[in-house]
């Protein structure tokens, strides 16, 4: 894909880099938790775009790669705590895949500081806010994910 030439680095107007964070969350726990963050009026940084899926078991590892390819600087993947899956075991299956995929990403030199896995329940509105703030701050510190962006368009004559 072409790097979209119009993409300006998001900025809060003060010149600070505003990272683009994509969060893949399950419908039953983390999405509800994030909802609670809002209804509880807990403030947190607005850099995250939430993508809701039925279950962490449904979060294909390809989605993470697609998020990076579409310009994400950081990724959050989050769902129900072990034992709490709405579908009984989706998060257990997901956990196995995360273990393998994360290792593989590390082996190919993808920056693991930009990928955060979490369990956030429907009751943990505060944890969601903390998580987003923590990830946003860390990725802001790291700067734009230029190494991955450099892959876009590379190899096209």
């Amino acid at each position: 894909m072409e790097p979209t030439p119009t993409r300006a680095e998001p900025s809060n107007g003060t010149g600070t880099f505003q990272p683009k964070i994509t969060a893949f969350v399950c419908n039953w726990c983390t999405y509800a938790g994030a909802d609670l963050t809002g209804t509880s009026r807990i403030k947190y940084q607005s850099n995250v775009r939430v993508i809701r899926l039925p279950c962490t078991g449904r979060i294909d590892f390809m989605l993470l790669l697609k998020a990076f390819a579409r310009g994400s600087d950081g990724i959050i993947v989050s769902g129900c705590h072990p034992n709490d899956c709405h579908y009984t075991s989706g998060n257990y299956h997901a956990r196995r895949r995360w273990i393998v995929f994360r290792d593989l990403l590390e082996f190919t030199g993808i920056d693991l500081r930009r990928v955060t896995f979490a369990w956030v329940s429907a009751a943990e509105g505060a944890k969601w806010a903390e998580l987003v703030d923590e990830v946003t701050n860390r990725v802001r510190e790291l700067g734009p994910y230029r190494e991955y962006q450099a892959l876009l368009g590379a190899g096209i004559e």
Partner: protein
Amino acid sequence: MSADFQLAEGSLDALFAAMTAAGRRIVGPRASDGRVEIGEVRSAGELARDGRHSVASAKVAAFPRVEKILSYRAEGRELAVEDPALPARPTVLFGLTPCEARGFGALSAILNWGTPDRFFNARLEQTTVVAIACTRSDEACFCTAVGGGPDHPGGSDLLLHPLTGGGYEVEVLTEKGRALVALAADRFQPPEGTARTAPAQVEAGFQMAEVTAKLPRRFDEPIWTEQSLRCLGCGACAYVCPTCACFDIQDEADARGGVRLRCWDSCAFRIFTLHASGHNPREKQGERWRQRLYHKFSYMPERLGVLGCVGCGKCSRACPVDMDLKEHLTEIAKGS
């Protein structure tokens, strides 16, 4: 065959420097991790000149793996479509085998049939081909059976003949070649008649005329299934072939715009001809193998007036399961 100049071994670096100074990118065979690749070469020392063949083909210079053929931007419901700028990258392909040089002729025949292919032509126009006559051949080579040879001039702008004592005699074959000589004119000396290293002996073992004569009547024979039993259906043969030009067209886009890309494709892949409905005109591997051979040795000669093969043997060397084209063609020629 007659030489126009002589180029001393010690002059190669000066020639490379002159080409680089003139803004030419130099691409050629270079040793890398025990194999020979086609890649950018900065000095003559980086060139692989031990007679080993590169795995991949230099066709990338004019027919890259992936190239942009269109770009577009969405503006609301409107859409702006743009032609990509013509590639501007003057290139010297240095040290190719004469087979590789000949390959551009077949590529051009395919891509320019009926309508000129501006992307290929623009790249080729900016490419100067300097071939070095082969002094070594291997089991896979059969250039002599398909109209070529270890010192065949076809497709080259300059042809270098290695001399026994080092250095080359230089045949200038085209205006492009002449222009390249002019970049370092003082290095190109009058030929002294020094002995050339004998060109490689290439024993083809079959007559191409026999193959072309027999193909039309062997179409329905079991030989194709038999020859392709071990074929895995990968695209290695097509992707290293100097004359394979089949391609795919792919869009890559986001909401704001995108590009249309031409990328290599291969008739060995099952999905090459697969319809969206699930119907596949060439469902079996044997049918796909047959298509590969017929396209190169029957349909192309008939329709385009050129063979789709230069006998370089790259496909045979690249094949993970040793599908040996020379051996297969010999078998076809021998049959009734």
